[in-house]
C-alpha cells in the first residue's frame, strides 16, 4: 500500500453530529455499517461487470448485516469454512448461490458444505481431487490456477493454485475418477491497482479451456475470476467502471455461453464500514503527543498488520497541528495505529474516525488483553 495515509482534519458540522450521535447511543469502540454504501458498491461492480455473477467473499467481513444486505440484492456468496457457512445458514440463506472456494478441505467440511447446499468446490491438486470422489454425483469442480499480480498488495497465488502446465493433466485425472471439472478459477491477488493480471489470466484460461474442450467430451465452461477489485484507501475516487474496462474487454472475447463468476470481498465492503474510537488517555513524551485510543491493531485496525493496509483517518476538530502518535489500547508497543502524524490537539473523549474499514478489519481482530470488541451497528437506510 505504500505510505500515503490520508488524514482529514475537521468535519462538516452535520457530519460530526452523526458520529457524535452514534457514539452517544452506542459508545465506542464502534464500527458503523452503512447498507446504502454497500448497495451502491454492489450495483457499481455489477454494472461494471455485466454477465458476471458476483459471490461476496464472506471472509472479508463475516457479519450478518452485511450478508443480509447482499442477499437481498441477489448477490451470491464465496465461503471458505464451515463457520462462514454457519453464518449464512443462521440467516436461512440457501446454499444454491454459494460456492466453496477453499482449495484444501477436510472430509467433514465437504459434507457440511453439501448439507448446506454448496455444490461447487475448488481444488488445485490431485490429492484434493481424490477427496471429492465420494461426492462426485452431486458436485461441480473449479480448478484453481496460480497467476501472480505484480500490482496486488496481497499475493494470493503463492499458497494456492496449480501451474498452467498442470491443468490438462489434472482435468484428465478428474475425468478418470468420474469427477466433473466445470471450469477454472484464479485469484490475481487482493487490492490490485489495475486489472492487467486479470486480463492476462482470462486470456490464458480461455486458451486452456478451449484447448481442453476440444479433447474431452465434457467442455469446461465456467470461469471464476476471483477478487482483487480495489478499495479507495487514498480517497482518490477510484472509478471501478474504468478499472474494469480492460477486464470487460477480455471477457467479451469469451464464448457467450460460458458462466462467469467473481468473488469480490474488499471492493464491496471496505467503504461501507467506518470505525469510531475514542481518545481515552494522552501523554507528552519526547516532544510528541501520544493519544491512547480504545481500538487498535489487535482490534479493528488489525488489517494494518494482516492486510498491509493503512486506513484514512479523520479528526473532527481543527486547529494548529503537532506531532502526534495514535496508539491502541493494549499493552503491546506494536499497537500503534499511526506514527508521527500531524494532528490538532485532542482531548480525552475526542473521536478518531477510520474510513474504508469494512474489509479484513474486524475479520482478523484478536482477543489480546481481553479487551471488548468494537460493536458493529447498522445505519438505517434512508428509504
Amino acid at each position, binding site marked *: 500500500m505504500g505510505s500515503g495515509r490520508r488524514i482529514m482534519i475537521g468535519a462538516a458540522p452535520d457530519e460530526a453530529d452523526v458520529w457524535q450521535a452514534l457514539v452517544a447511543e452506542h459508545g465506542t469502540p464502534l464500527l458503523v455499517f452503512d447498507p446504502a454504501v454497500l448497495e451502491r458498491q454492489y450495483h457499481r461492480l455489477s454494472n461494471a461487470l455485466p454477465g458476471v455473477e458476483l459471490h461476496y467473499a464472506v471472509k472479508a467481513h463475516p457479519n450478518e448485516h452485511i450478508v443480509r444486505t447482499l442477499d437481498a440484492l441477489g448477490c451470491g456468496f464465496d465461503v471458505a469454512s464451515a463457520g462462514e457457512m454457519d453464518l449464512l445458514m443462521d440467516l*436461512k440463506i*440457501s446454499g*444454491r448461490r454459494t460456492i466453496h472456494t477453499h482449495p484444501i478441505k477436510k472430509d467433514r467440511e465437504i459434507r457440511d458444505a453439501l*448439507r*448446506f447446499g454448496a*455444490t461447487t468446490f475448488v481444488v488445485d491438486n490431485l490429492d484434493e481431487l481424490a477427496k471429492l470422489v*465420494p461426492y462426485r*454425483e*452431486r458436485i*461441480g469442480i473449479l480448478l484453481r490456477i496460480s497467476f501472480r499480480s505484480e500490482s496486488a498488495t496481497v499475493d494470493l497465488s503463492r499458497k494456492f493454485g496449480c501451474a498452467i502446465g498442470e491443468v490438462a493433466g489434472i482435468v484428465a485425472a478428474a475425468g478418470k475418477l468420474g469427477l466433473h471439472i466445470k471450469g477454472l478459477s484464479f485469484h490475481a491477488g487482493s487490492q490490485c491497482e489495475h486489472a492487467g493480471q486479470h486480463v492476462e489470466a482470462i486470456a490464458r484460461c480461455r486458451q486452456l479451456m478451449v484447448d481442453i474442450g476440444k479433447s474431452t467430451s465434457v467442455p469446461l465452461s465456467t470461469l471464476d475470476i476471483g477478487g482483487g477489485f480495489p478499495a479507495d484507501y487514498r480517497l482518490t475516487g477510484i472509478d471501478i467502471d474504468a478499472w474494469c474496462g480492460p477486464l470487460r474487454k477480455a471477457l467479451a472475447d469469451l464464448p457467450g455461453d460460458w458462466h462467469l463468476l467473481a468473488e469480490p470481498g474488499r471492493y464491496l465492503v471496505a467503504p461501507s464500514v467506518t470505525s469510531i474510537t475514542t481518545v481515552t488517555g494522552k501523554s507528552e513524551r519526547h516532544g510528541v503527543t501520544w493519544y491512547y485510543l480504545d481500538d487498535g491493531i489487535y482490534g479493528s485496525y488489525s488489517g494494518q498488520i494482516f492486510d498491509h493496509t493503512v486506513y484514512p483517518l479523520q479528526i473532527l476538530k481543527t486547529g494548529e497541528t503537532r506531532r502526534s502518535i495514535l496508539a491502541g489500547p493494549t499493552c503491546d508497543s506494536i499497537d500503534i495505529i499511526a506514527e508521527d502524524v500531524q494532528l490538532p490537539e485532542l482531548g480525552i473523549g475526542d473521536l478518531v474516525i477510520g474510513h474504508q474499514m469494512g474489509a479484513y478489519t474486524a475479520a482478523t481482530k484478536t482477543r489480546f488483553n481481553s479487551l471488548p470488541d468494537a460493536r458493529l451497528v447498522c445505519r438505517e437506510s434512508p428509504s
Partner: protein
Amino acid sequence: MKHFKETLYDSLYQEFRIDKLYFESRTDHQHLMIFHNARLGRVMTLDGIVQTTEADEFIYHEMMSHVPLLAHGQVRHVLIIGGGDGAMLREVLHHPVAQVTQVEIDQAVIEMARQYLPNHSAGAYDDPRLQLIIADGMNFVRDTDDRFDVIICDSTDPIGPGEVLFSEDFYAQAKRCLAPGGILVTQNGVPFLQPDELNTTAQRMGPHFIDSSFYCAPVPTYYGGHMAFGWGTDNRTLRHVELPVLQARFEKSGLQTRYYNPAIHQAAFALPQYMLESLAGRD
C-alpha cells in the same frame, strides 16, 4: 425466500414456488422447511433436499410398505426406522399387523409433522398397535432382542443425519433383527443420477442376505427417474411371488391404493438395463 431451489446436484436443480411457508427451523446444522406449493400441496425439505410432498408421497409410501408386506404374506411385527412424518406408519397400519415398532431419532420431527403435515400420519400415531421409540436407529438394531417380519428403513439421504443407515454395519444388524424369512427394504436414491449410491448399497448389503436386490418406482419429486428401494431377505422366493397370490392377498387386505397394484408389484423388480449394467460393473 420465495422459491425453494434444491441443492442436490451442481449442474441441475428443481425449483418449487413457496406459496406459503408453514415452518422453518435451523438447528444442529440442519435446515428444515415445510411449505405449500400450488401443484404439490405441502412440501417438506431438509438441508435443501425434497423429503416428501403431499402430491406424490403415496407412491413412495405404498411401494415401501405394501411390496414387502404383501410379498411376505404373514407379517405380524414391523419395524420402521425413521419415517417421522408418519406416512409409512399410516400405510403399514392398513395391514392386519399385530405390532409396529417405529424408531425415530427426533421427537420434534414427529410433533412438527403432526402439526404441519397432518395428512401424512392421518391419525396413525394414535393407533394402539404402535410402539414408538425415540432413539438412534443404528443403536436400536444393535441392541434390540425383538425380531421383525419386515424392517422398513425410511431414511434421509446418505450425507446428513441418516448416514449410518447406509453403513454395512447397519445392514448386518438389521439382518440380525429379522425373523426367519423376514425382509429389509431401504430407501436408495435415484440411480439415474446417483449410480454410486446404488452400487455402494449393493456392495454393503449383498454379503448379509441370500437374496439382495432392488425394486423401483418413479417418485416425481425425487427428481431423476426411478427411485430404487433396497431389498434384502434370506427367502429367495419372496421376490417372485406369483401374480394370483399377490392378487388374492391384495384383495383380502382391502387396501385402497393409488400407485400399488399386484402387477406393479411384480414389475417393480424388473430393473432397467442401465441399473443392471451399473450393478454388474461394480467389480
